[in-house]
């Protein structure tokens, strides 16, 4: 009933430019949330290699030749995976910061500066991500 009249291009494009802080925060939070769930599932799938590994010989385990350790090491050797991990960190940090912002908003704190807190979350995310690059990429080359 209240669907918009089809205004063609006007409705479809260009609108994003009219988005305000709160809307961007919402979109980013959504996006990061979804990425995190996606990661959670993949993460558990990868870690599950620990189940067959636990059946292997202690020596094999000690040498780090088990399925689990091998999988992780192989993955960690890929530069792509390292970069993705940095991305994951960015995503997680933003989600945490903005999530904290949302928690405060839910408590009725800082409603007037909600746009500022969003920008702060963005900037902090950027800083933390950049600062962690060395640690994350260490040993990848």
């Amino acid at each position, binding site marked *: 009933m209240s669907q918009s009249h089809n205004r063609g291009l006007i409705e479809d494009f260009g609108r994003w430019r009219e988005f305000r802080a709160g809307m961007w925060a919402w979109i980013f939070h*959504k996006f990061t949330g*979804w990425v995190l769930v996606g990661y959670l599932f993949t993460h558990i799938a990868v870690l599950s290699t620990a189940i067959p590994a636990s059946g292997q010989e202690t020596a094999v385990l000690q040498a780090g030749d088990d399925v689990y*350790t091998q999988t992780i090491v192989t993955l960690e050797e890929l530069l792509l995976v390292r970069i993705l991990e940095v991305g994951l960190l960015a995503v997680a940090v933003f989600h945490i910061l903005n999530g904290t912002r949302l*928690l405060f908003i839910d408590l009725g704190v800082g409603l007037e500066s909600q746009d500022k807190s969003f920008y702060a979350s963005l900037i902090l995310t950027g800083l933390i991500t950049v600062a962690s690059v060395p*640690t994350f990429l260490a040993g990848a080359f």
Partner: protein
Amino acid sequence: MAERYSSFTPGGTMWLLQRITAAFLIVVLAFHFFLLHFVNHADEVSFIVSAARMETLSYYSLMILFLVTATFHGVNGVYNALINQGLTGRKKQAVKTTLIVASVVLIVQGVRTANAWAGGVPL
């Protein structure tokens, strides 16, 4: 709108749980990241080291709790997002079932993994 008076819609409860899990996750996720990327570098991971951590009861329970809350928080978040997009009726029911099944699978698999490290539930 028939559902207007149904105070049984657990909207409020789920909303509150989403916030509570979020607050919990802030701490745990930060700890998790810190531990596995900064204290122990990612490329130094091995079964033995992981197993060693997991054999401690407190760490084990924390991780299980982490798993459960993260799963709840994530899956409930996804579900809410879909509802907000106007998902209703049979589709909604189907999505709900799928998500619940996926969560159960995820948690079961996660617990089995943890047990693998700990060699059973550490007691």
